[in-house]
């Protein structure tokens, strides 16, 4: 070949290689440029996203954002959190104010199809319930005819509540207050008889706000399915994959028995499944434009799904229930990492 042809071929190869590298999506690119991920979280829901006494955000939704940062940057701390109410959350994501919404948001058809958003998976399976004071002597949700019920606007809770009462031919008076703090005040000062939200929210509210936990009863009826999951915008498949696989990595780590404490040891393991997962063999990270140790970083800095659950939700009295792994009787299932 002449020198000219050789040069052209080299140039083309370099160009192709560069083109292959820079096929990351716009959200990941802008996050890398900014140096952090803007994560939309709840304003303050115990167990999911709540600032602690030092002002650090803690919760399983926060852990998911930290996992994405660990995968993208190798540092779980590269996150900024935007507290969002139920009414602001979708507009904030749609407009680009946050990169990912990890805010105990129920995955529904209308939200997935009609808002220009995509749910990446489920990080917590829940259902809607009711909480009343014990002195009311109410044993079932069917006895709540005529009650004043506290609920937050713009939630599936509001809609399910109306449906349940309609289908059971009962009436109720909604007390609709936007801010979580205010709606809890209204219930605990007696402005309304019943508080309704997801059962995890009821347990969290009772644990953090009730003067005496045994004075409040959570009724046995669970009137809906509420699968919570992180949400991203339509049109950025690369970002969608990163967030989805960060969630799956945490679940897969628990299934493989890898914890934050033993991950360093496990990196020496001869088990090919573990080797692929932790990046000691294979090039899986490159497929997402991430470091090969993306899953290792997630487990080391954030922990696996079980550890995250035990750290934040178990102290509130929530039990794994259907959030156990699929092979232990629950619904948490991650596709294989190969």
């Amino acid at each position: 070949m002449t020198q000219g042809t050789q040069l052209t071929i080299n140039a083309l190869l370099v160009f192709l290689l560069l083109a292959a590298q820079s096929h990351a999506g716009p959200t990941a690119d802008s996050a890398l440029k900014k140096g952090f991920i803007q994560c939309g979280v709840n304003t303050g829901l115990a167990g999911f996203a709540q600032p602690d006494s030092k002002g650090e955000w803690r919760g399983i939704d926060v852990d998911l954002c930290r996992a994405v940062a660990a995968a993208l940057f190798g540092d779980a701390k590269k996150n900024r959190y935007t507290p969002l109410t139920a009414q602001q959350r979708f507009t904030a994501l749609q407009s680009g104010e946050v990169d990912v919404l990890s805010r105990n948001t129920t995955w529904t058809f209308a939200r997935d199809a009609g808002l220009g958003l995509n749910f990446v998976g489920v990080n917590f399976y829940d259902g809607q319930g009711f909480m009343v004071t014990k002195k009311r002597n109410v044993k079932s949700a069917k006895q709540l005819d005529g009650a004043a019920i506290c609920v937050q606007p713009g939630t599936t809770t509001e809609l399910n509540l109306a449906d349940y009462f309609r289908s059971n031919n009962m009436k109720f008076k909604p007390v609709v207050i936007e801010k979580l703090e205010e709606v809890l005040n209204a219930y605990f000062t007696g402005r309304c008889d019943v508080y309704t939200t997801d059962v995890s929210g009821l347990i969290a509210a009772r644990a953090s706000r009730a003067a005496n936990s045994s004075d409040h009863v959570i009724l046995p009826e669970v009137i809906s399915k509420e699968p919570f999951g992180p949400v991203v915008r339509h049109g950025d498949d690369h970002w969608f994959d990163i967030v989805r696989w960060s969630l799956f990595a945490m679940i897969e780590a628990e299934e493989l028995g890898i914890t934050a404490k033993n991950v360093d040891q496990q990196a020496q393991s001869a088990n090919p499944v573990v080797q692929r997962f932790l990046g000691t063999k294979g090039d899986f990270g490159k497929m997402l434009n991430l470091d090969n140790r993306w899953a290792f970083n997630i487990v080391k800095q954030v922990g696996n799904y079980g550890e995250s659950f035990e750290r934040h939700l178990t102290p509130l009295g929530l039990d794994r229930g259907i959030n156990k792994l699929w092979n232990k009787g629950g619904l948490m299932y991650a596709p294989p990492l190969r």
Partner: protein
Amino acid sequence: MARQLDTRQRAVFYQILLLVVVGLAGWYFIANAVDNLLARRIASGFGFLRREAGFEIGESTLLSFSAADSYLKALAVGLLNTFRAALLAVMFSTVIGIGVGLARLSSNLLLAKIASAYVELLRNIPLVVQLFFWYAVITESFPAPDQALSPLPGFFLSNRGLALPSIATWLPLQIDYPVLGGFNFSGGVVLSPEFSALLLGLSLYTAAFIGEIVRAGILAVDRGQYEAAQSQGLSQAQLMRLIILPQALRLVVPPVTSQYLNCAKNSSLAVAIGYPDLVSIANTTINQTGQAIEGIAIIMAVYLTISLAISEAMNSYNQRIALRGART
């Protein structure tokens, strides 16, 4: 003559140019928004108004609403609730405002000082903080419905609001008394704590401003009127009622119109304390349907209409009662 024509032609030319520029800018923004909505597959258009709302509304004026009704009906309920709060707040604040204005000018030192303190306090604290305060007072100082206070038979005061007997039919006269059953009172009419807190907060806040305007109006009446009235032997009360107030109140109509507009717009703070006014219901609608632009456009159009209607009404009233030749 030729120069005048040139100036006019130039003026017209610039007007047309401005119109074209504004029109192009408007078209660009709208086209941009539509493009973005389509690209992100966010639903758009006003078709959602016919869909079933799916949520209940805590209180509604005149209309009865259930979750099976449309979003359009939900917004109509919100609008009527806004009217109820704004109209009553405007009426109460006018009456209280005139009282406060007069009190501040009173020769009784204690009364004057109390009125000054009232005005200074209420004008300087943000309205939303005042609304939270009244809401907390109402919900926390009254007992639960089963221990409700009953100042008069058929009237019950509890942290669920004031339950009053209402008239079920006029002929024969049948009164619907509120009765405690199960969780709450049923029957009669209930003034919820949200509505009461909103009405109280809004009226007292706007009254502070109207009080100052009325005081300015009274002080603007010519000194000569006082002297002439006193020389006629009129008492203080007659002086105020027959001479000063009729003149003063004519003067204050324009600034009080702005306060009425503020009051109508401030009623949208109801969303912070849970009263289902138009903004609160439109917010819920926006969140359930994801159509933020249409929802906000509806809110803006409604408030613009309300404000223009109030200003139009007050301005024509002002035209009719303005004193000819007075320094208005």
